[in-house]
């Protein structure tokens, strides 16, 4: 019994890696270009909000620059993971139509889903770590420890599964762009990235707590500034991860035989 479970786990892991492998080949062939393009917008945010608007400002006793960097890391992880998993899958499904090959292969839906989500995680981590490296040079003073990295990984997982979900539900390329404009863009600015939620009215605060990025920003900021772990937000991230993962499985089961 346990042997068969181990065997199944091993096969599923290998299959998920196979699905990931083809996307890694593409990422490897464009790694230089990817690194440059993916770090430009967070660096612009850092310069514009951290050095420009926020110079001399303090939030809850810390400089605005120190406050905003973890928020920008969270949004970098969000954007890169969502696009890395979602856009790639959208292209595979609707443009190349090579996703059919995965659906017809003798692999489990779990492996397929993990493989497709993991490329988002890889891209999210690569982008975030590149930005963290640049930020440590430009604005040192935040801590990157194991807890921070674990929360960064969770952030990438949440938004990779959200990307996969959006790509599975999309019926055209435009659908994914619409999803990005309606969900991701507002989250970029409202998800606790650039301002403290303590400053917003109660009703809006409640709405902002419904956004996964808010909790990712809160957790990453606490870890970066050596503050106590915000357990409620950490649990909220895990909740969003499970929600998006389960939703992806339901949709995947619906579209495959």
């Amino acid at each position: 019994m346990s042997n068969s479970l181990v065997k199944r786990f091993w096969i599923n892991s290998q299959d998920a890696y196979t699905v990931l492998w083809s996307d890694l080949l593409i990422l490897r062939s464009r790694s230089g270009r990817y690194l440059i393009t993916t770090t430009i917008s967070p660096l612009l945010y850092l310069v514009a909000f951290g050095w420009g608007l926020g110079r001399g400002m303090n939030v809850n006793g810390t400089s605005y620059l120190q406050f905003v960097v973890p928020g920008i890391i969270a949004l970098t992880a969000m954007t890169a993971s969502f696009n890395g998993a979602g856009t790639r899958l959208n292209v595979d499904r609707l443009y190349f139509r090579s996703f059919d090959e995965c659906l017809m292969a003798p692999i489990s839906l779990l492996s397929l889903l993990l493989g497709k989500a993991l490329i988002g995680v890889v891209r999210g981590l690569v982008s975030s770590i590149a930005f963290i490296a640049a930020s440590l040079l430009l604005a040192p003073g935040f801590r990157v420890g194991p807890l921070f990295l674990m929360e960064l990984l969770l952030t990438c997982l949440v938004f990779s599964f959200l990307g996969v979900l959006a790509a599975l539900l999309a019926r055209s390329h435009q659908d994914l762009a619409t999803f990005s404009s309606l969900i991701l863009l507002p989250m970029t600015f409202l998800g606790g990235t650039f301002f403290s939620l303590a400053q917003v009215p109660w009703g809006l605060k409640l709405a902002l707590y419904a956004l996964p990025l808010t909790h990712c920003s809160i957790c990453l900021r606490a870890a970066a500034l050596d503050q106590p772990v915000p357990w409620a937000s950490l649990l909220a991230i895990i909740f969003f991860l499970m929600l998006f993962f389960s939703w992806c499985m339901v949709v995947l089961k619906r579209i495959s035989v």
Partner: protein
Amino acid sequence: MILIDGLTREYAGKRVVDGLDLRVEKGELFGFLGPNGAGKTTTIRILTTLTKPTSGNVFINGFDVARDPSSVKSQFGIVQQHMSLNRDLSVRENLDFHARLHHLAPEVRQERIEELLEYVELTEHADQLIDKLSGGLKRRTMIARALLHRPRLLFLDEPTVGLDAQARRRVWDLIRKMNMDGSTVFLTTHYIEEAEALCDRVGIIHHGRLIALGTPLQLRQKLGMITVEMQGCGNGTDYRFFPDREDAARFLSSLPVQDKVIMRESNLEDVFVELTGQKVLDK
């Protein structure tokens, strides 16, 4: 090899496959002929586990497609109508990906890839990106990919659509070779000459229903082996079918004017037009 029983698929209340019953035997090269939108691709999608049927049963090599899709998935290879290759990868990488998905061991994988590159004459293009290849070379890559895990059954969905005459002939040769090497081939096409040139048996599908089934010869014999085409009759061309040339000649001699009349051998297009009142390429 393939057993289809009462297969139906509806989209928004419209039946695109309507009560299809069919049996394809091991080693056969079976042609599914019909115009665009007749239900060929939907049937193939159901047979290859990509689409759920509304009702009916399908068995591939004894495995139930609806109940045991995992077992069915390792039984077949497919060349889809559209280019379903990853265009950001090379020919070799696409094949490698497929081999990994089908759990081929690393040493077998490399050997099989080289063997198939040679089989479809793509060795010199192996490291080129798919995007840089011509339509014919892409199609040959898809054929190599379909054969990589040595399936006993091959689905070819309009395998020559969009190819020039030379590339089409090369794909035909490959299809014959695969069939002679022991693969059962289920081919959909709307090219009459393709079905006639390749298939042991042909099923004609129209509005989702199988309206004729038999060898190309049987279907032509049923209609009449000789066709007399009379141009300029009424609204267009009128066709008459005869079992042999003598009967056709007797009919011709009874006609008052013969300068716009052609006598020729009947083909599957004639069978299709006679059964449906529509040309295969009309749609």
